[in-house]
């Protein structure tokens, strides 16, 4: 497919950049996302200074050491005597980039003290690092579930539309059944069947694949619609006349026509499934503590005390906005854009 729209290209680059940012979490985040600093729960975001209390300008930006106010639990004040300069490329917690390349070098950090750009949570864990690492889980959930849905949806929908008749009726009734299933309760059930001591990531991926597998019905219906009209077109009839097999026609002539529908669907489904992960974690069905994901980062907001006292705990929600914007704008630009292979009626 030719992507001719400049807008689409720009959005794609934007999204790739965002994903790369999250993918490189190990390098960009200054700390290990599960490392607790029990003396600093709910520390507010550190302000970055260039000018110190005495009015002197420093080229190297710095933060002040935050100290808990005497007799308080979560009230911090800047200790203006200790200036912590920010440095680029410092060594710190070990990580594995993309899950393979080991490293200890971080984009920025401090040599002593700590800098929490977006504050800390109730265990004193760095929120900035957690949002970046959490994004890996959430985006993986979205991409994985969407590909499962699309893969099943394309083949089932394509076959259903192409063959028609009984096959079509049965498949479409099945799709309607899937659409009507209360998936939340189904997930409660699936989670209950898993053993207690499983790798949390594995348990979570199982859940994601289940949502993805259940979500095939909607793309299947759309693909079926395209396949229905495609199979009546002259070149398909001609291919049939030449004695081509069903499988060949389906792969060579019918499914290629569904590309734009599928791409648009993908751009819609990915954010939808990211949101599904957030919902699940919010309900405690997603990935468990201490591993971060956008959903379980937000789940602490269920408590009124957190909601009213620590505004930086909302930031994971803000972090999601550019991703959602990117995907949804991409889907609309894919729909509007000039399409060489637009299906003519």
């Amino acid at each position, binding site marked *: 497919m030719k992507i001719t729209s400049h807008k689409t290209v720009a959005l794609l680059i934007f999204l790739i950049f965002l994903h790369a940012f999250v993918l490189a979490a190990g390098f960009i985040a200054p700390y290990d996302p599960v490392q607790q600093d*029990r003396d600093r*729960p709910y520390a507010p975001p550190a302000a970055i200074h260039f000018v110190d209390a005495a009015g002197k300008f420093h080229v190297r930006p710095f933060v002040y050491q935050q100290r808990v106010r005497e007799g308080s639990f979560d009230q911090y004040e800047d200790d203006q005597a200790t200036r912590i300069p920010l440095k680029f490329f410092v060594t710190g917690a070990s990580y594995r980039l993309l899950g393979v390349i080991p490293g200890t070098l971080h984009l920025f950090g401090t040599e002593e003290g700590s800098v929490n750009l977006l504050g800390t949570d109730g265990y004193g864990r760095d929120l900035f690092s957690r949002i970046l690492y959490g994004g890996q889980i959430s985006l993986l959930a979205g991409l994985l579930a969407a590909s499962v849905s699309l893969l099943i949806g394309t083949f089932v929908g394509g076959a259903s539309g192409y063959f028609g008749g009984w096959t079509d009726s049965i498949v479409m009734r099945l799709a309607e059944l899937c659409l009507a299933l209360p998936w939340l309760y189904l997930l409660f059930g699936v989670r209950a069947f898993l053993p*207690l001591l499983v790798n949390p990531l594995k348990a979570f991926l199982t859940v994601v694949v289940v949502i993805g597998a259940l979500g095939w019905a909607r793309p299947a219906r759309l693909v079926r619609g395209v396949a229905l009209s495609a199979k009546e077109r002259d070149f398909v009839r001609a291919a049939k006349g030449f004695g081509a097999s069903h499988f060949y026609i389906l792969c060579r002539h019918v499914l290629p026509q569904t590309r734009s529908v599928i791409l648009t669907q993908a751009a819609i489904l990915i954010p939808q499934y990211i949101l599904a992960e957030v919902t699940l974690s919010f309900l405690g069905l997603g990935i468990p503590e*201490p591993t971060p994901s956008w959903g379980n980062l937000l789940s602490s907001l269920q408590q009124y005390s957190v909601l009213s*006292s620590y505004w930086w705990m909302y930031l994971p929600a803000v972090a999601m906005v550019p991703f959602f914007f990117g995907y949804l704008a991409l889907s609309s630009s894919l729909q509007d854009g000039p399409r060489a292979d637009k299906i003519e009626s």
Partner: protein
Amino acid sequence: MTQKCLQLIRRTAWLGVAALLCSLPSVLRASPDSARAANTEFLVSRDPVGQRGGRLVLSLRAEPKTLNPIIAADAPSREVIGVMQADLIHINRGSQLTEAALAKNCKVSKDGLEYSIELRRGLQFSDGHPLDADDVLFTFRVYLDEAIHAPQRDLLIVGGKPIEVQKMDAYHLVFRMAKPYGAGDRLFDGLAILPRHVLEKPYAEGKLAQSWSLSVLPSQWAGLGPFRLKEYVAGQRIVLERNPYYWKTDAKGARLPYLDEIVFLFVSSADAQVLRFQSGETDVITRLGAENFSVLSRQARGYAMTDAGAGLEYNFIFFNLNEPSVKTSADAARRQVWFRDVKFRQAISAAVDRQAIVRLVYQGRGAALWGPVTLGNKRWANTEIRHPARSLDRARDLLRQAGFSWKNGSGAEQILVDQKANPVEFSILTSSSNADRTKMATLIADDLKQIGIKAQVVPLEFRSLLDRVTQTKEYDACVLGLASFDADPNSDINVWLSSGGTHLWNPSQAHPATAWEAEIDKLMEQQLIAKSFEERKKNYDRVQQILDENQPFIFLATPDILVGIKNNVGNFQPAVLEPYALWNVETLFLRNSSEAAGK
């Protein structure tokens, strides 16, 4: 000023009309006649004198299920019934000691088997009907009736036999027990004395369990507590009014209670209760978490927040010490071998950072624990129990002694392995609805990571958690909390006896599985029949020591009882026993209550 007054009148007019309409039945009922009052043996309260009038508004977590004290088992029902009923002997929530209530005095025979009780004379139920020994006889007949299924029935079976009650005359009764029972007088606390004239008929017809539901007419409800039923609005509130026949007076001889009304609003979530209290809709808030407490303290306007000190709730982590059955998987059985090793449990106890739990979970409003007796319990703590600080070295030593060792993991970290080189990994269950305990489990998992143990926190819905712990026994470790209703060891007896259903680490055993559990069984039985406090304490001290040595529960922390109340409420003395705020409801009063009533 006038405008303000008018506004106030307009705003409160409907309330006045409602109050008038609702008080009609009570006007129709005979008002307490002074001749009878003169002969009444009142109990004189020692609390400071207050002033009459006003209403107190509180929120309840849920609608009460019933107003019938015999079958009430849920907390909201008990809280409401608690201010409408009275007992013969009452535990003073402030001093945690028993004191005479409806009974004028109570004498115990030398063998500890007989309790002679003399009733106060001239007392009346809230409908004006006099109280006598027949009501008490009827009450105990009902509570002990197997067909009724009263939750208190088990408590009244001492030494395998129900307590026998005998009426001597209209004001004297004798209670006989089959076996001596330590602190037998505490048994009477919370046993509401029932009006025979109202309930005898439904009881004879076998309809007692159905009577006094929430739809009962106020005129058909009678009790001996400071308040009586006025109105119930389904899904919204229950309103209680002052009982004009109450049997306590203040130091000046004025009849208590001071308040005219108590309103319980049904507010289901803790956060919604906080918002209602903050906006001034409710006057009192209890069962507060530390986070909400500090939110409320930070913006306190017109109310005061009180930290009443450590309560009786103790939180702990425990391991699955059940005998593996045929259904237990080989993996689970292998893990249970570690758990049964006392050195392993001691090592976990040494590795847990209790102070961090107090600081991060309770924001410092709690205390670290090394035994089941909390600071809130004034008389039963064994002071010999040591409170060792967290020590990873000691934990490593203990693990080494138990045959564990360490090997290098993928990164820099060390992995703890058992004798067969299996890595030590297990799951910790917590209730997903309890944020505090989930937080504790997360902190513990991080503590254990430092000695090479990989613990996985698994929040489960509470019912399925209990099912795993007590029924299927498919779990490794679990963080739970227990809150005794009384500061006496007998209230926890089902936790410590090996046959008990809440003996969580290995519940409902036919025979004690270990020698130390057998010893605890023996000691608990002994303290039950011991006659003096000192003797009982000696036995219970030893129980605490055995628990400390064997660590079936690894005790973590206890939260403080946190309450908030409007500044204009007088005589407020929050206690660490339930009901935290309302235990002295009869002497609570509103300063400037004319203003407060129009609120």
